[in-house]
Structure formats: structure tokens, C-alpha cells
């Protein structure tokens, strides 16, 4: 393939595991003490909820709301993973609550707390992952085996290619950035990896990357919908995933979830979560992060400082932003539809997954059998306040001076707990992560062509707003190649400039002859969609088959202020 030539040859480096035996892995230790861990999570969550709902009435109201929401969820949106005894469980809770409120208050002194305990305990067990070394090894080998079979079958065009080992995943997935530092930090403290989230593939991809980098398995929150299919559930479980059920928005559930993540981090389990919450609907790099799970890192770090006995070195938490860069996102059509209907004030938005897990499997087969590489950028490590850390894990200020992270939690000489302060810290950390995303994001040729084409069409219709533009019939949209080429070149120059200023990054294939770069971009942008977002017609001019999709891929480059150079 001519396209491959443009890509710098992967170093294809093998990383040795940083911890030899699985029994040393924090995630393993966590799962061995699973029962006791769940107890701790449940107990602390219950305490937290009682703090948040201090009066008896507030607590009972909260529990009633929880039951109501759970019963509504079961009525409307049941999934295969949902345990069969759910209905019975919540009816029982409901009955207990009715009994409770029917009687005068003093009789049932602690009954509502008991109910709360039962609920959070159920949630904690539901969330908890179940890491088993044997199935981890098995799953890992399975994935490796099948991926490389598929890869070789498609690329080595010879009889028996299926059984060759000429290509490995590392050819397909490039890992760039601060790999060495990440490996070093993982030995010195606890890693919290925070990747961007565009596709359901992310969860599996990142699991493989962690393994490829020689890191012990991370615990991570995976959407419960991925557990609907048994084979996926098996892999996810064995890779250290815990379950996040986005249908459940009630306070006890959210607090239990945060507590689970927080305590695991405090216990030194490397963790991973997608701080954007769900997949980016618009295709833009996340600008607003969900602060809930992120706040657990700040809180965990503070608790570590509080609980470390004097004389011992407190364990440090390192936040590592990661961006996943694709030419193609399988779910793009549905995602952008969702986005546009939200933006267009259409309130109804079903939580569904039209592809299901089989769709994902089919996509992965497509992905591995056809072109289109993925690249993963590992960002520089940050402390929980968003300061860069060096390879030793020391936090540095902007002038490179070593600072003590503990000082951020000190007031009048004392280490203090201040929830409002920590909320603010979480917000600062999230802004920092967003900046880092943009900085380490690798701009692909496909992003460039999508961005330029869409912006040019927007410019040609200055009177139309976004929805007006998207309603234009695709047949009428043609861009003159010469003009398109000129603009691509100009924007590419600006991207170089951004890279120089350390505000963005780009793939190596973006360099070289602009015609080749454009060709690469056009060949790869949204490559497997039925309707291609961008094509050349017979005259060589630029056309689209699906403007919504083009808008989606264009959005990847929003946030760099490049629109004004079109």
C-alpha cells in the first residue's frame, strides 16, 4: 500500500513487564480480598451518603427516590446482564420503606440506615470487578492470537498467511509519547490513566496497550452495556474491569461508584477511566470532563497524605492523559445524530447501542483486515493538581522547581479536609487534562481534509447556520480541488506552527507532498462507512456523501482556533 510508506516505521519495541509475577499486581491483591474490599466500599459509601443527607427525612426521601428510579429503569430499559432477582430485591426495599414510614418515627431507630446499607452493599458487589490471573492470561493470549491471525491473513497475501507472524498489533497501533516515563511512574506510585473516548473499541484497545507497555492490569470502569454479551463480559472481567451502569443516576449508586474508584486508588491499584463520561458525541476532543470520578483522585491523594504514618513516604498519584486517534469511528453516524438532536433541542435520547457487541466484533475484523492505523499518544504525567511530574515522580512548577503536592492541602500549617477546595482542584485538574489532550492529540491527514472541506463549505454559505448547512443536498456540494489543496496546505502550516508552540501534535504522515497527504486523508477518513464523508469525483474535485459524518470528523480539529485561517 502506498499509504504505508508515508508512515514512519514503527519501532515495534517490546516492553518487558515492570512487575514479574501477577501476585504482585495491585489489581490482583484487590481481587483476592474482594469480599473485604466490597465491605469497606459499602461501609464508607453509606457513611458518605449519611453525611450528604444528614436528617432522617432527607435520607428516607433519597431512598424512596432511588427505589422509584430503579423500578422505572427496570420497566423501561432492561438489559441481559441485569440480575434476575432485581425485581424482587427492589420490591422488598420498597415494602420496607413503606413499613418504615407508616410507623411513628421513634420506633424504627436505625431501620433506614439498614436499608441504605443493604442497597449500597448490593451496588458495591455489582460494581466490583473480578480479576482472575488465569483468565487474564488466557484472555490476553486469545486476543493476541486472533488479532495477529486476522492481521496476517489479510496482509500476507499468500497461502497460509493466516498462520504467519509477520505482522503484529504493534504495526497496527502506534504508541507514541511518554512511554518510558509512564513505566517509571507506575513503579513509583499509582497511575490514573484518563483517555479520550470516541468509540466502544477504546476500552479493549486501551486494555491491550496497557499490556503491551508491560504494565500490570489496570482497574477500569467499563460501561455495563459491554457486559451484555458473554464473550465480552469474560474479557472485560479478566482484564480488571469494574462495571459502570450509566442508567443508574441515583445518589447511592453514584457515591458507591466514586467510593469504589477512590478506595482502589488509595490502595495503589492503577486505574483508568474516561473522564469525558460517555463517548464524544460530536467527535470533538472532550472539553468538559465529568468531575465525579476525577474528584476521587484528588480525594484519594488527600486521604493518602492524611493516613500515611509519619516517617513513611506517602504514595503519590499520577494522572496520565492519553488520546486515541482514529481515522474511522464505527459509531460515528449514530453519535453525530445524537449530538445534533441534542443541539437541535430534541430532548428525547434513548440510551441504546444499535451495533451491539457483534457490531463491534465485526468492526474489529474489518479494522484488522483492512488498512487504517490507530495511534495512541501517552501524555506526560501530572500530579492531582495538574503539575507536570518528572520521571522520579516529583511535581514541578512552571520553572522546573520541585514542589510538594501535600502543601496544596495545608491550611494554617495543618493538613485539612475542605470539600469546596477539592472541588475547585478537581475543576483545575480537568482543565489541565483538556489542555493536555489538545497538546498530545495527533492530527491525522484524515482529520485535516475533513476539517478543511467542512469549513470551506461553511465559508461558502456564510448565511447558513449549522443546521441550515447540514440540510443542503450533498449533490450540490463540490469543492474545487485546487482551492481545497491550497487551503489544506495553509492549515497544515498552521498545524506545524501549533506543534512548534507545543499546543498540538500531528502524525508523521502529515508531512511530505501535500497531494499525497490529501490522498491519504481522503482514503482514510471514515473509511468503512457506507456513505463516505469525503471523496474525489471523476474530475478530481472534492465531494461528500454524508455531510453529517463529515461534520463529525471535522470536529476532531475544533478547539485549535484554526477556523479563521480557512
Amino acid at each position, binding site marked *: 500500500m502506498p499509504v504505508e510508506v508515508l508512515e514512519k516505521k514503527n519501532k515495534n519495541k517490546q516492553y518487558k513487564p515492570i512487575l514479574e509475577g501477577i501476585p504482585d499486581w495491585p489489581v490482583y491483591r484487590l481481587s483476592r480480598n474482594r469480599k473485604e474490599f466490597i465491605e469497606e466500599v459499602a461501609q464508607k459509601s453509606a457513611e458518605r451518603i449519611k453525611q450528604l443527607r444528614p436528617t432522617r427525612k432527607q435520607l428516607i426521601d433519597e431512598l424512596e427516590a432511588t427505589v422509584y428510579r430503579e423500578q422505572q429503569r427496570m420497566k423501561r430499559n432492561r438489559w441481559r446482564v441485569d440480575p434476575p432477582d432485581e425485581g424482587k430485591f427492589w420490591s422488598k426495599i420498597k415494602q420496607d420503606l413503606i413499613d418504615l414510614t407508616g410507623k411513628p418515627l421513634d420506633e424504627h431507630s436505625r431501620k433506614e440506615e439498614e436499608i441504605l446499607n443493604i442497597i449500597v452493599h448490593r451496588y458495591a458487589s455489582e460494581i466490583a470487578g473480578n480479576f482472575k490471573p488465569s483468565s487474564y492470561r488466557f484472555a490476553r493470549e486469545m486476543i493476541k492470537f486472533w488479532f495477529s491471525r486476522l492481521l496476517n491473513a489479510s496482509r500476507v497475501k499468500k497461502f497460509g498467511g493466516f498462520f504467519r507472524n509477520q505482522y503484529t498489533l504493534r504495526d497496527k497501533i502506534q504508541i507514541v509519547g511518554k512511554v518510558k516515563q509512564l513505566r517509571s511512574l507506575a513503579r513509583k506510585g499509582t497511575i490514573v490513566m484518563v483517555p479520550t473516548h470516541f468509540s466502544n473499541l477504546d476500552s479493549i484497545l486501551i486494555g491491550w496497550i496497557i499490556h503491551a507497555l508491560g504494565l500490570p492490569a489496570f482497574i477500569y470502569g467499563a460501561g455495563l452495556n459491554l457486559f451484555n454479551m458473554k464473550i465480552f463480559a469474560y474479557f472485560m472481567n479478566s482484564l480488571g474491569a469494574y462495571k459502570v451502569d450509566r442508567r443508574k443516576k441515583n445518589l447511592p449508586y453514584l457515591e458507591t461508584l466514586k467510593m469504589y474508584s477512590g478506595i482502589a486508588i488509595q490502595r495503589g491499584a492503577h486505574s483508568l477511566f474516561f473522564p469525558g463520561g460517555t463517548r464524544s458525541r460530536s467527535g470533538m476532543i472532550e472539553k468538559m470532563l465529568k468531575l465525579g470520578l476525577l474528584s476521587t483522585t484528588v480525594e484519594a491523594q488527600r486521604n493518602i497524605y492524611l493516613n500515611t504514618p509519619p516517617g513513611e513516604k506517602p504514595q503519590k498519584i499520577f494522572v496520565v492523559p492519553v488520546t486515541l486517534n482514529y481515522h474511522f469511528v464505527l459509531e460515528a453516524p449514530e453519535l453525530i445524530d445524537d449530538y445534533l438532536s441534542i443541539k437541535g433541542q430534541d430532548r428525547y435520547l434513548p440510551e441504546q447501542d444499535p451495533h451491539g457487541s457483534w457490531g463491534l466484533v465485526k468492526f474489529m475484523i474489518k479494522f484488522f483486515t483492512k488498512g487504517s492505523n490507530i495511534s495512541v499518544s501517552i501524555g506526560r504525567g501530572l500530579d492531582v*493538581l495538574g*503539575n507536570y511530574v518528572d520521571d522520579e515522580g516529583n511535581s514541578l*512548577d*512552571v*520553572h522546573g*522547581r520541585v*514542589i*510538594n*503536592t501535600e*502543601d*496544596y492541602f*495545608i*491550611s*494554617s*500549617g495543618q493538613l485539612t479536609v*475542605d470539600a*469546596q*477546595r477539592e472541588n*475547585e*482542584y478537581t*475543576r*483545575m485538574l480537568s482543565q489541565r487534562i483538556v489542555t493536555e489532550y489538545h497538546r498530545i492529540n495527533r492530527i491525522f491527514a484524515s482529520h485535516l481534509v475533513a476539517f478543511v472541506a467542512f469549513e470551506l463549505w461553511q465559508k461558502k454559505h456564510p448565511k447558513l447556520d449549522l443546521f441550515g448547512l447540514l440540510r443542503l443536498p450533498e449533490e450540490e456540494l463540490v469543492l474545487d480541488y485546487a482551492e481545497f489543496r491550497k487551503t489544506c496546505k495553509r492549515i497544515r502550516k498552521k498545524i506545524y506552527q501549533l506543534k512548534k508552540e507545543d499546543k498540538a501534535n500531528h502524525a508523521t504522515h502529515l508531512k511530505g507532498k501535500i497531494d499525497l497527504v490529501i490522498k491519504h486523508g481522503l482514503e482514510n477518513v471514515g473509511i468503512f462507512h457506507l456513505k463516505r464523508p469525503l471523496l474525489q469525483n471523476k474530475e478530481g474535485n472534492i465531494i461528500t456523501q454524508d455531510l453529517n459524518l463529515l461534520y463529525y470528523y471535522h470536529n476532531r480539529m475544533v478547539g485549535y482556533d484554526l477556523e479563521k485561517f480557512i
Partner: protein
Amino acid sequence: MTSRNLSDHPPVGVIGAGNFGSAVANLLARHRNVLLYARDEKVIKRITQTRENRGHSMHKNVTPTSDLQLLARECEVIFPIVPSSHFRSMMKKLSPHLHPYHILIHGTKGLDITLPKGQTIETVSKLNRSQVKTMSEVIREESVVVRVGCLAGPNLSKELAARHPAATVIASPFNEVISLGKKLLRNDRFQVYGNNELIGVELAGVLKNIIAIASGALSGMGYGENARGLLISRGVVEMIHVGRALGGNTKAFLGVAGIGDLVTTSNSTLSRNFQVGYKLAQGMTLEEILASMDEIAEGVNTVRIIKKCADYYKLRAPITTTLYKVLFEDLTVKQAISYLMRYPLNVDIDFLD
């Protein structure tokens, strides 16, 4: 009343022994020991010997010093109150001595600008937000301190010194900083309010100086209260319009630090900014006026900066741009007023939706 256990607490630092700095040091000294930093050894000597500084009689708990390192070591809470043009260089000197446990509450109502090499404020044609910073942003950029706040409101130093009733706003995203500021500054003649909109409050304090110059000019022309009422109400609209474009929240402009400070400064002959406008209307040139003042009138620089920001962001800011022409080009105050009176836009309130 409050000095009972003064020695139990570490001292509080004030950087800048100007008019407002001295007033704040005296307010703080009622609750804590205060280290007051001054660059000039003569000032330190004068305070030590005579307890007098810029018309303030300095409280006995105030100790002057020229040692920034000592100040940062002794004090966890520091109030930097130096002119905006020196603020960044002061922060660069202070920064190596600061730690994340420090809390900084500044009292400077001006903006910082970073220009491309070889450019000056006179030559640069437009300014965008990445080049224009509030003082809290300078603190964040130059140091590791994150718990930052500002002091804003109608605080004419001479009235504070005379113990007239007054109020101030402590703005910070951190409630911790606000409650600390309250504890340190509040007394029976001085009320302290809290606000979480740091940037908005800072911008309110900065932008009101523009209106204060304009108000001085009206007085200098001998115009009465109708004119001032018009100016102040249109001034608020312009402040909010510009302030929002620069990242401030509307609410911040409607409180003590916004309207409160605006009304005070626009009516006060004590205000330096007001004086600038007044003398302009009387026919003095800007150079003559600035030469006659002992301290910087922040408003003059602010007009220059905001005018160039307004150009960049294509903002409608008739008062600022007209005032710019009066200050730096050759429009007379009279021409300016007649231009503004014919300005076409006349919607009363457009910022509350």
C-alpha cells in the same frame, strides 16, 4: 479586642507600601502582626522612625521590611498591592519563595500585558485575551500558588484611614480564601463580602476606572448630575459588555465591586482616575497631568488596553474608544461628549438575558 493572641498566629504580609497598601496594612494590623514590604529603603526608614507613610499613621503592629524572602517565609497569607505595571516583575521575584500552601489576595485594579518582542503599548495595534491578564492570572502563571483572591470595592484610602464606614469584596473561587479574608479584614467599620467570581470582580474593579476618568471629565466641564447619572448607567452597560467578552460573569458587575465601586470613584474628587479626567477637561495635557501625580492612575493604561481589546474582539465600547481618542489622540473632551450624545445605539438594558 483582637490582639489578644496575636503572637499565636503567623504575621500577614502586605507587598507594596503605596496608598492602598498602607491602608490595607493598617486594617490587617488590627487583627494580626503585619509585615509590610517596600522596595525603597527610605520608606522603610521613615515608617520605622515616624510611623508615617503617605498620610497614613501606621499601626504599631506593622513592621516594614525590604526582604521578600523573609516575608514569604513568615507569612502564609500575603496581600500584594503594587501597580499593575510592576506586578509581574514583583511576582517573578516573589515566586521562588512561594509554596502551594501560600494564599495570595491582591488589591491591584489594573491589567497586565505581554507584548510581542519589539512592540510597546503605543505601537501594538490590537490585543487579545492571551496577551491581557488580570492580576490573579499573573499570580497563577508566575507561581505555584493556586489559592488566590482579590480585594475590590469602594475603598478610597483616605476614607479608610479616617475610619469611615466602608465595605470590600473578597473574590476567590475558594471559600477558604474568602473566609480567611473576612477574618483578617473585618471590623466594626469595615464590612467584607464574599464572591466566587474572581475574574468578574477583578474586571469590574479594573473597568470602572475608565468610567471614573470620564466622570472626572464631565465634572471638569462643569456638567451636573444628570450627565453623571447618564454616564454611570451607560458605563455599567459598557463594563458588562466588555467584561463578559473578557471572561467575567455579569453578576460580579452588579455588586459592591461593580456598581458600588463605580459610583464611589465616579463621584469622588479623591480618586486619581477622576482627577485625570477633571484636569483633562480643564485643558491640561496628559503628560502634564501624569507628571503632577505621585502615584499611577491605573485607568489611563486600562483605557489603552481595553480599547485595543475592543478592536480585536470587535466590541462596542463607545465610552472607552472615545476616551482613548481624548487621551492619546487629539479629540477634545467637548468633541467627545457631543460624539457620544449622538451615538446611535440606545437600548437601555441588554445584558440581562
